[in-house]
């Protein structure tokens, strides 16, 4: 009998077995495939364009003591100096900003990058038509991406046509010289529109320049890396005060390492990859468990084969062959499941994953490798166990051989392992979901609902008189309860950091974030005043801080937050009120202390902030509006905006949305992937348990019958069976709890604003696992426990 017919018969004869085994394996493979695609996408960032290995990026950052490290732009002059100091170095600068394309009467916001012509040699984007390098040789040349081209020009060629782009409120006409093919999603730095950077870009200093470099070889790159501190000393940043030079750090990093540089991003990808591997492992364990469990039932077949002369080798090959066929079947089913699930996964996970069958990214070679590995892994143990049976022993024993006792023990160990992992994943899911819900609802020190922010208020193209007009018009809009402006805003904005010194204090003065705010800032945000008073320039004209005049020299009034008061060494907020502190050459008087507001990510500690009042809100201010009905007010604001500044695109959104986009979205999406993975892993564990229970109860029908003959009641038998199936699940907690505890305390440790790791998560997850496991086996246990003993004993 060939392997195929033997497998076919064993599949059709034991339908339940086949469904559980292949179904469970397929589910595991589907989870693995989806998460494998995710990990491949994430780790493949910036590795999609040819020559990616040669591209380096300048990474410049600044860190004040006690503050998180922040990225700062590289200097536009650096590229020229690099080329001069290290011959053979090439590179390009990249300056990205928001622009707007005039389409009829409407403005469409679009990202735009000014780049050096060499940019397209460094990044070899696939080109649909035209030549990017020659396109940028003209000052009015522009390179656009295919989706942009399609949205303005449809299917016709767009080469030579013009595009009116509004930059900083000024319209400029560009001629399209090249169109790039649609780009994959995993490229860190790209843009909708590209134009040429003016050769002398020094006027653009301070804007968000990125510098990309390429070196002749690895040795040259290593030499530059070594020499970089000296290079920075040779070419100091003219904008940096002397004292700050040591706080800045300049490095060159391979571009491909940039995407996963942040710890939490890397951890997220690693964890999801691990979940995929674990799901697959659980499914393989299932296969092994079910196959060895069934070994008992197949022992006679194998023994008879041996009696008629099959060698052990032939049997091992037969059983491995069966595993190969089963795993192939499961893989194809898993692939189909993954295909079906991907759109859904992409939607809720914020990913853009597709399965490719052809080309370099084809799923087929890794899938083939997977099939081979899983077949070996899953088939080896059953093949080994089964082929080892001594025919005489098997045929002599009434039923299964005594050798199955070891197999039963192994199965128990594997079930413990499976449920240990599944319970750990469940605990982690609970903690993850709770923490992510917490950061989205936690008290940030201000009322986060009903706030709208309009960053476009502060762009350079909107002048001071337009701002005043906008402010006045928006304040009187129906539905608006308060309006303010400020440089600092949720998720960022503009501010500076400087040391503040309390007279007579010893030790390093704390670095305090200096924020400028406009009228009714605290009132609009709804911040609690802890001591002193808020700014009130009507009653206290000296509350207004002026810059650039003589008035700058006099003491200015500040409101500080609680953290600042503490860092400055005041025992209570009230103790700080009325006190003087020095900030560089200036001196500041604290008029009030407010509660901490969390504008930064929940991962970082609360900032120490000192607020000073300026009528206009400060440099590049953000307009913030409080309204009950944000959607309606947003629409009204846009109408006002179009009337007053028609040449600047209106950009505004709720603070809630902004916080979600910047701080929560990625965690939410990743936690959804994790949750799905964890639930499916638990499900796979349950499939395994169900299968084992089914086989175990079938195998024990006689024993149960005898027990009932000897006076065991239905309850006794139920207790016996449930106890036996649930003991490994209970034992699994011993594995699950420490793993989950370590993993989750580390993950929560990455958050400043976090929940407590309460034992409740552990208890609930374990109870849930136990309940699910009980429900899984209860049906079977009930059936055999209820059976008439006479019938059970007759089945033999």
């Amino acid at each position, binding site marked *: 009998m060939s392997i195929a017919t033997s497998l076919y018969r064993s599949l059709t004869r034991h339908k339940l077995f086949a469904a559980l085994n292949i179904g469970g394996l397929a589910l595991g493979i589907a989870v693995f495939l989806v998460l494998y695609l995710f990990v491949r996408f994430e780790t493949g960032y910036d590795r999609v364009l040819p020559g990616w290995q040669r591209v380096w990026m300048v990474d410049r950052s600044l860190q004040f003591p006690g503050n998180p490290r922040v990225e700062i732009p590289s200097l536009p002059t650096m590229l020229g100096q690099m080329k001069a100091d290290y011959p053979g170095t090439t590179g390009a600068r990249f300056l990205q900003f928001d622009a707007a394309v005039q389409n009829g009467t409407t403005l469409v916001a679009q990202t735009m990058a000014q780049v050096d012509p060499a940019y397209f040699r460094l990044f070899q984007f696939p080109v649909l038509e035209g030549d990017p390098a020659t396109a940028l040789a003209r000052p009015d040349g522009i390179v656009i991406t295919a989706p942009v081209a399609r949205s303005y020009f449809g299917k016709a060629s767009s080469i030579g046509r013009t595009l009116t782009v509004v930059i900083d409120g000024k319209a400029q006409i560009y001629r399209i010289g090249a169109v790039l093919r649609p780009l994959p999603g995993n490229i860190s730095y790209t843009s909708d529109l590209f134009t040429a950077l003016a050769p002398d870009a020094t006027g653009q200093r301070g804007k968000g320049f990125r510098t990309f470099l390429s070196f002749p070889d690895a040795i040259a790159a290593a030499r530059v890396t070594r020499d970089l501190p000296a290079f920075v000393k040779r070419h100091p940043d003219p904008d940096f005060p002397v004292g700050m030079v040591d706080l800045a750090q300049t490095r060159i990093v391979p571009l491909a390492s940039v995407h996963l540089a942040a710890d939490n991003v890397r951890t997220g990808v690693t964890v999801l990859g691990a979940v995929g591997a674990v799901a697959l492992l659980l499914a393989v364990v299932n296969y092994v468990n079910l196959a060895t469990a069934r070994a008992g039932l197949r022992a006679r077949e194998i023994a008879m084969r041996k009696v008629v002369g099959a060698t052990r080798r032939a049997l091992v090959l037969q059983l491995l062959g069966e595993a190969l066929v089963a795993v192939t079947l499961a893989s194809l089913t898993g692939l189909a499941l993954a295909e079906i699930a991907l759109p859904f996964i992409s939607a809720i996970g914020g990913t853009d994953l597709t399965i490719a069958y052809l080309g370099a990214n084809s799923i087929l070679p890794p899938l083939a490798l997977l099939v081979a590995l899983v077949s070996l892994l899953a088939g080896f143990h059953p093949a080994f166990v089964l082929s080892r049976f001594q025919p005489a022993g098997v045929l002599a024993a*009434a039923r299964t051989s005594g050798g199955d006792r070891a197999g039963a023990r192994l199965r128990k160990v594997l079930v413990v392992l499976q449920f240990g992992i599944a319970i750990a994943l469940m605990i982690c899911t609970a903690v993850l979901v709770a923490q992510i819900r917490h950061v989205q609802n936690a008290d940030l020190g201000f009322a986060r609902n009903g706030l709208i922010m309009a960053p476009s208020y502060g762009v350079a193209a909107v002048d001071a008189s337009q701002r005043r007009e906008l402010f006045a018009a928006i304040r009187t809009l129906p539905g608006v309860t308060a309006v303010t402006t400020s440089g600092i805003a949720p998720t960022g904005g503009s501010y500076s950091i400087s040391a503040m010194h309390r007279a007579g204090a010893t030790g390093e003065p704390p670095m305090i974030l200096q924020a400028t705010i406009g009228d009714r800032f605290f009132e609009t945000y709804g911040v609690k005043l802890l001591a002193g008073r808020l700014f009130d320039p009507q009653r206290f004209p000296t509350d207004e801080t002026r810059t650039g005049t003589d008035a700058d020299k006099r003491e200015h009034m500040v409101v500080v937050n609680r953290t600042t008061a503490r860092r400055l060494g005041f025992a209570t907020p009230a103790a700080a009120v009325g006190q003087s502190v020095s900030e560089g050459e200036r001196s500041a008087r604290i008029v009030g202390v407010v509660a901490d507001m969390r504008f930064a990510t929940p991962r970082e500690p609360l900032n120490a902030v000192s607020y000073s009042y300026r009528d206009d809100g400060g440099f590049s201010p953000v307009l913030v509006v409080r309204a009950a009905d944000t959607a309606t007010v947003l629409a009204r604001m846009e109408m006002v905006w179009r009337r007053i500044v028609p040449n600047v695109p209106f950009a505004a959104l709720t603070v809630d949305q902004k916080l979600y986009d910047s701080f929560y979205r990625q965690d939410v999406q990743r936690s959804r992937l994790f949750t799905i993975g964890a639930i499916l892993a638990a499900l796979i564990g349950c499939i395994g348990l169900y299968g084992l229970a089914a086989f175990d109860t079938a195998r024990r029908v006689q024993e149960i*019958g005898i*027990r009932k*003959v000897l*006076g*065991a009641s*239905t309850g006794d038998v139920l207790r016996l069976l449930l106890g036996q199936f649930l003991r490994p699940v209970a034992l699994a907690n011993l594995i699950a709890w420490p793993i989950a505890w370590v993993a989750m305390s580390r993950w929560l440790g990455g958050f400043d604003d976090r929940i407590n790791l309460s034992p409740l998560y552990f208890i609930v997850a374990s109870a849930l696992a136990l309940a699910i496991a009980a429900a899984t086996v209860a049906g079977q246990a009930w059936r055999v426990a209820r059976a*008439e003993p*006479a019938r059970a004993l007759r089945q*033999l």
Partner: protein
Amino acid sequence: MIALHDVSRRYASDEVETTALADIDLTVDAGEFVAIMGPSGCGKSTLLNVLGTIDRVSGGRYLFEGADIAKAPEAELAKLRRDRLGFVFQSFNLIDELTIAENVALGLAYRSIPAKEKRDRVAAAMDRVAIGHRRDHYPHQLSGGQQQRAAIARAIVGEPKLILADEPTGNLDTENGAQVMDILSELNAGGATIVMVTHSPAHADIAKRTVNMLDGRILSSARRAA
């Protein structure tokens, strides 16, 4: 001790209905040793199972010490089996995964008896059937006769009032069969009531009464002349 009145047992399996027992009237007094004989398929095992409450009757009354238990709840029957009945099967029905001692101990598993007393009673039961030296072996390591003696030890460890034996010697050679019959006679002499199915006229002769069956009915019941 037990009495069946007009008992019937029918099996319905996909369309075909088999009548395994019909119009059974049978009384067994305490201390009796009854042998049931008849051709294969006539319903002997079914009758024994009904007596042992491990199979339900389709109709009729089953009085156990005066109380009708034909429709008694399952829990009550389990208790009855635990406290009053002992079973011996033709195919032994020992549990492969348990040692002989553990198999015998199963006979006391569902009673609350102190562990030490349990141990003593298990040892005594095994000694009584001369199987004590095999206590730590597994069933498949024993001969058929030894396995049947172990099964008897399991049946009697609870000191049942009624022992039901379904062809206890069916799978044994003459010598082992004789040994088993000796044990059963001894138990009967000690006061236990025994109902035994057998195909062997010689073994039936050892019993005090023989019940003959055919096609699910009792043909005759004859007491052995003293």
